[in-house]
């Protein structure tokens, strides 16, 4: 089976085959043979070259997060993602739907529907854990819709504003 993941901005194409409990991974010339024992839904025990690794795997819709050996690897699923994940989620809102950078509480709404905003203008302030976070416009645009008001609790998935 073929898989594609986006890791640190690079697409990694791999193919995997299984022979009983041994998983064979090929990436270009490289090959890795691992005996895999699932410990739980989120934990695997992988034996590679006689060495055992306890690996944590968290699956989300757009990404798989793997942790082992003191490192966290974020593997983005390009095929299933709507493209937003592929571009990465950093950088200010440049248009379209603006989402919260973190779960929190809306403490200020500084724009109204129909209002034109300048680049870097603060549109909203969301507070979490005693830290205020300003949400700024990534470019000059018009606020089409304001979905939240002061006091609303928001999570990272909920749309705050729509811009055009």
């Amino acid at each position, binding site marked *: 089976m073929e898989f594609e993941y986006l890791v*640190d901005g690079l697409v990694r194409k791999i193919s*995997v085959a299984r022979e009983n409990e041994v998983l064979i991974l090929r990436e270009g010339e490289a090959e*890795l043979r691992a005996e895999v024992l699932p410990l*739980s*839904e989120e934990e695997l025990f992988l034996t590679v070259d006689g060495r055992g690794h*306890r690996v944590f795997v968290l*699956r989300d819709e757009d990404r798989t997060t793997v942790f*082992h050996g003191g490192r966290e690897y974020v593997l983005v699923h390009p095929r299933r993602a709507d493209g937003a994940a592929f571009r990465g989620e950093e950088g200010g809102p440049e248009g379209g739907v603006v989402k919260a*950078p973190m*779960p929190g509480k809306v403490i200020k709404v500084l724009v109204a529907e129909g209002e034109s905003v300048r680049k870097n203008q603060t549109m909203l302030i969301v507070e979490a854990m005693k830290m205020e976070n300003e949400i700024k416009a990534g470019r000059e645009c018009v606020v089409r819709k304001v979905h939240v008001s002061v006091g609303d609790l928001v999570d990272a998935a909920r749309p705050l504003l729509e811009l055009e």
Partner: protein
Amino acid sequence: MFKKILIANRGEIAVRVIRACREMGIRSVAVYSEADRTSLHVQMADEAVPIGPSPAAESYLRMDTIIQAALRTGAEAIHPGYGFLAENAQFSRRTAEAGLVFVGPTASALELVGDKVRARQTMEKAGIPIIPGMKTAAGTAEEFKAAAREIGYPVIVKASAGGGGKGMRIVGREDDLLPALEAGRREAKSAFGDETVYLEKFIQEPRHVEFQVLADSHGRTVHLFERECSIQRRHQKIIEETPSPVLDASLRAEMGETARRAMEAAGYTNAGTVEFLLDRSRRYYFLEVNARLQVEHPVTELVTGVDLVRQQILVAAGERLAFSQEEVRQRGHALECRIYAEDPGQDFLPSPGKIRLLREPKGPGVRLDSGIYAGWDVPIFYDPILAKLVVWAEDRERACRRMAAALDETVILGIKTPVAFLRAIVTHEAFLAGRTSTAFLKTYFEDWAARPSDPDGLRLALAAAAYAETAPRSKPRYGGDGRTPESTPSPWASLGPWRLGGD
């Protein structure tokens, strides 16, 4: 001794105090807001009392509600932890007026050390070195010039109404003084509506060194040596250690004695900390008193063998300190890393949310003071501290290695934490060389980003991800921690309602 204590706090520090109570045979009462109903401190206490809605102002800061909870549950004392009401003189006073004991300093000592100007005057009178500066803020240009010459350049222009760096200007020579005064006044005026500025000596790349003090109510005050807390982000400490890599025996003894005298001058009792700035020529200046148990208290506990929370409770109960200054010894080296719910790769953006996986580090010399568990939702309402990883080893180099290994073992998934960032710091050559100052992170870690650089590790990760993708969501076959209450089928969950014993 008390039979029951109420802990007016949450998170890891509430858990820490509950543990001390349990060991002393004292029953503990937790208080909790709506957001904290399922928190670890609530589970660990002998009793738990709801005190209101999630925002701290409506729960953890409600003095009367908390005092009422103590009276209703029959607690005899209140331990405030750190933050919230810990340094609130009014709370200390009201607790006493209700016939309860406040585990901390008296209201009058809290008032004195909490007032920066009065504290500074008291210390100056007691002969404690303070940062040289102007005594009065008003003055002509000539008076400012004379003052700057007396203080010695570089000086810093500060706003009287100040805070947050607004109105601050660093001046290296006399020619730049007047323009800096004007700019500082303008900025102060627009930020605080008050253009008053004054001058203070500017300490370049200072180290932050503090001394732990314990004082009983019978006149004995001892210090328990220093902690160096120079590694800070946004003026908040993230790594602390003891001993400080820069103090030698004589400077340590001198600063410790100064800290002791400072607390005596303030009429201070219980546990407290005297903070100093140490400049590059190893001159030290009194900064302030932290009138509480501090976040970083465990490093002191590990090198001195003194349980500070236990001592706080003993002192509050009126007992005498059972040891003298000469009997306190520093042994080995201890380091603490603070694990916050935040993303060091995105300017320390807070990262509340559900902890989906948690594996805690273990091993010789490893201590984790934690307020979290897998499956718990880290609320958005409070300070982002989750846990403190503390290690002890024979010397600093070994302590750094032990910390790096313990951080490698630490798995917290579901939210962002600085575990990898902390590991990068404690393995950085400048840190290992002891070149710690408050400018450390700015100098060496300004654009830090976590990058999995190890290709073998990445390939293993890809294999695991692909396996998880193809595997049917099977039941676990080999046990493991499986601390994932949501997804792992548990016999308890499938049994339905059940009772122990039956009645």
